[in-house]
Every structure is written in C-alpha cells, then in structure tokens.
C-alpha cells in the first residue's frame, strides 16, 4: 500500500472514529437517562425532540453558553489542565481497538483499525492508567475538602483495580500468544463457544468488574459519591470543564466496552455473518456486529448502575484485593498449567471456573472465620460486612 493511501485512510479513519465517539457519548447520555427512567418506572427526558432525542444537544448548548467560572481559591494551571488530562487518555485509547475486519476500497485493503500496534493491549493499559491524573489533579487543584477526599479515594481505587485489570488479561494473552488486539480478535472463532469469555470466564468477570471501577461508575463511584462528597472531584467545576469530565466518563465506558468486546467477546465475529457479502459489505457488516456488541455491553453498564448499591470504602478495598485479585491470579496459574498439560480449551475453561470457585470459597471462609464477633474498638477498616460477601455472588 502506498504511503499516501496509508496516510489518507488513517486520517479518514481517525476523523470517523473520533466523531463516532463524540456522537456515542451523546447517545449514551440520552440512553442512560431514558433507560434509567424505564428501570425506575418513569419517563426520563422526552420533551426536546422526538423521544427526547435532542436533549443531549440542548445540554451541550447549555454547557457551552454558561459562564466559564474559575473560582478564586483554585490552583489555576492545574485546574484548567485537569479536565483535558482526563479527556485525552479516553480519546486516544481507541486508536488500537479494531472495530471491524478489513474493508477493500479501490483495490486497497484497509483494516478497520487506526493503528495495529504490536503491543496493543499494553498500550491500552498504559493509557487507561493515566486517566487517574485528571481526577487526582482536578481534585487537588480545586482546593476543596470534598474534592480532595474524592481524589484520594479515586487514586487508591484506580491503583487497586488496575492490578486486576492487568492480571485478568494475562490468560487471554497466554493462549493467543500475541499482544496485538487485532490478532486477539482474529484468533477467536466465529462462534460464541470459541470466544475468550467462556475459556476465561472468571477472568472475564474480574476484568469487567475492574473496568467498572476504573470508569468510576456505580457501584464504584466513591470518587464522586453525591450523598457524601457533593460531587467529589468535580465539585468546583462548571460549564464546559464539567462537561469534559462528564464526556470523559462516558468515553471511557465506550472504549472500555469496545476493548472488552475485542478481548473476550469475539470482536467482530458472529456466526460467520461477518464474511457475508462482498469485500465492502463484509467490512461494514463486521463493523456493525462490533457496534451492536459494544452497545449491548454499554446497556449492561446502565443496568448495573440501577441494580447494585454503592460500596463502602473498606468494602471496595476488600473486594478488590481479597476477591478480584486472587481470582485473576488463579486464572493465570490454572490457565498456564492446564494449557501445557492438556492443550484443550474446554478443559482450561472448566478448570478456570472450578479454581475460581474454590479460591472465592477459601477467601470467604477465611474472612468469616477471622471476623471477631464483637470488636472492642469500633474500627471500620477491619470489619467484614455481609454485603461484601454478597458481592462475590
């Protein structure tokens, strides 16, 4: 492929994907409010445009025309920088996500991916680990106690759950023996029982949970818990700067879902449907499949939000370190041993589930046994509550 075609196609892909992301954010805001309304047996926004579809645009216009307020007591450079530091990582992660098979135009085969980096998944981990700076710096620069508490909580939470996020994918990487997201997607076959989420089911659950924590969504939204911290790290932000925090959260959700679909849910594969049609149509269909899968996963995000209550801080840490992390670690060991011993994906899948069940039972048993019946000093850090145990089920 000539250099000119490469550059042109890359630019077109970048423009399309960035706009898709921005439109996706608006669609997510609308659907979040509508779905929330549906789940709580109310209507949600339905006045602006048909079914309230233009509500996000109205919101966006309102954000833009509001006064861009910078409070006096803030640290100005960091206060202005923080929203951008959250938004940029959310935007650039999508560069390595393959959102479809190749499409053939004018005799050139163009892969539907901005850049197929050979360390793709490491790139995703590296960039997502930067998102925490936006939260922490915004919180610190606001010079507000509620913000600072939100920032401290968020940094501890993100560091803790990042470990699980990284460890949970090792099993997938071992069986694929590649770090490239495109290779990982291609290696998973056309049928759902060939996809990674069945082979690495505990790791899939751990990864998804850790991703919810990384995006600061309920039940992990301690950084912005309304009932405790006003609005957490973005209490002092208004107008477009607040909108940037808001957009970054939704963008993180979309990109996180896309990465999960690529890693665990077979990417653009669906019963061979992606190969139907000519060179152009199959590319578009594969993109459509990927899009639908991501959308379903995003719906689960909203669903979870209205299903689970927020964790208490010690529950959050207990859950991350004592349940998710051991599960992710066990999945690495079990996958490695069973893969070398048998070489069968079926056995690896079954072994993973059994091992995860055993580990969770052991940890839960230890926690119950070590629980002092009546602690002499009320020390909330060391108490295990029933809801922490419920959360593992």
């Amino acid at each position, binding site marked *: 492929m000539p250099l000119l075609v490469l550059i042109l196609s890359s630019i077109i892909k970048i423009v399309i994907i960035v706009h898709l992301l921005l439109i996706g954010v608006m669609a997510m805001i609308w659907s979040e409010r509508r779905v929330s309304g549906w789940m709580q047996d109310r209507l949600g926004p339905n006045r602006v445009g048909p079914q309230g579809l233009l509500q996000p645009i109205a919101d966006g216009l309102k954000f833009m025309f509001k006064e861009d307020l910078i409070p006096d007591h803030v640290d100005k450079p960091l206060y202005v920088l923080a929203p951008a530091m959250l938004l940029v990582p959310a935007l650039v992660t999508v560069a390595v996500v393959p959102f479809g098979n190749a499409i053939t135009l004018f005799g050139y085969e163009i892969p539907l991916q901005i850049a197929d*980096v050979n360390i793709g998944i*490491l790139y995703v*981990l590296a960039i997502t680990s930067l998102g925490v700076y936006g939260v922490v710096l915004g919180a*610190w620069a606001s010079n507000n106690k509620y913000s600072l508490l939100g920032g*401290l909580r968020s*940094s501890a939470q993100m*560091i803790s759950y*990042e470990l699980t996020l990284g460890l949970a994918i090792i099993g997938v990487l071992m069986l694929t023996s590649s770090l490239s997201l495109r290779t990982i997607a291609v290696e998973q076959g056309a049928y759902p029982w060939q996809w990674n989420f069945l082979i690495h089911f505990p790791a899939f659950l751990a990864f998804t949970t850790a991703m919810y924590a990384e995006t600061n969504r309920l039940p992990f939204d301690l950084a912005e818990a309304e009932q405790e911290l006003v609005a957490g790290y973005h209490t002092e932000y208004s107008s477009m700067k607040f909108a940037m925090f808001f957009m970054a959260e939704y963008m993180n959700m979309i990109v996180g879902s896309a990465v999960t679909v690529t890693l665990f849910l077979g990417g653009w594969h669906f019963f061979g449907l992606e190969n139907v049609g000519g060179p152009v149509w199959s590319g578009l269909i594969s993109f459509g499949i990927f899009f639908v899968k991501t959308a379903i996963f995003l719906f689960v995000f909203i669903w979870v939000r209205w299903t689970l209550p927020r964790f208490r801080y010690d529950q959050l840490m207990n859950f991350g370190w004592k349940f998710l992390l051991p599960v992710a670690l066990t999945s690495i060991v079990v996958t490695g041993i069973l893969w070398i011993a048998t070489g069968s994906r079926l056995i690896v899948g079954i072994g993973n589930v059994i091992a995860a069940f055993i580990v969770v039972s052991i940890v839960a048993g230890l926690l119950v046994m070590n629980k002092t019946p009546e602690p002499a000093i009320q020390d909330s850090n060391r108490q295990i509550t029933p809801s922490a145990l419920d959360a593992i089920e």
Partner: protein
Amino acid sequence: MNPEQILFIFFGAISLIGAIAVISFRHPIYSALSLIVTFFAQAGLFVLLGAHFVAAVQVIVYAGAIMVLFLFVIMLLNLGTLSAQGAIGGKLKGFAIILGILLAAEGIYIAMNALNDTAVASAEAAAESVTTTTYDIGELLFTKYLLPFEVTSLILLAALIGVIVLVKREGQEEN
C-alpha cells in the same frame, strides 16, 4: 534531517526541560507532573530505539503506578502548606551546580568515547534499527535471567512486607 533525528531532538528536549523543571519548581506537585512529562518523553525515545515493550512498561510502571503514589503521598501530607521546603542557600547551590557540570562533562566524555570500545563498535554496524519484540525479552527473562527474575519477586515481597510493617498503626499489634 530524517524523521528519526527530528523525533530524537523533540523527545530529548522535552525530557531535558522536564527534568530541569523537576528540580526547579517549588511545589512538589508541579515537580511530580514535570517528572511524568520526562517519563513520557523517555517512553518516546524507547519507541525510537525499537523497544516498544519497554516503552509501554515505562508508562505503565512509572507514569501509571509510581507517580500516582507520589501524588497520593503529596496530597495526603498536604505539603503545599509547609514552609521551609525549598532549595538550599546560594553558596552551596553554586557549589552543587559546579559539581554537576563536572559530572556532566565526565559523562559526556565517556559517552563520546564509548564507540572506541571495539565490541560495541563492531556490533553497531551490524544491528542498525533492530526492533526487539516482547517475545525476545520474554525468552531471555525466562531462560538466561530466570534466577534474577525470581529474585526480583523476592525484592517486591520484601518491599511489600516492609511497607506494611512501616505504616502499621500502633495499638494493632495484639490483633
């Protein structure tokens, strides 16, 4: 100038500016941010050198974990409100900078003469623009350097235990 030279100058300049900013800012948070910028520029240099894996690990470990810990501690101790945390006085500072310049001169002298070493020089011609893959590093790590690799896990374990002992609150010992 070819693209590699332009990128080298770009990343090199950023890392130097960032490094100088680390030691010049008065507030630790700004120093930490400058250090993150430096680490990023270095990751860029690693990519230029064909070490993609190391570049990614650099961002994950340094920018993603170590610097977040620094920021966490700075915020926890709220160091901005402390006085008397700046640099040392004028005379000593001048002395330190003179020492630094001497050290830099020495380092540059060694660097410029590194190619006189025949082993490096002969390999230099053979291996221009080789990209090391994750596979290569993994292979070395689990064969030739297996023992050191296992020892690093001991270091991490020791650090883990050390930190827990250090920050353990008094009065919890009997539990």
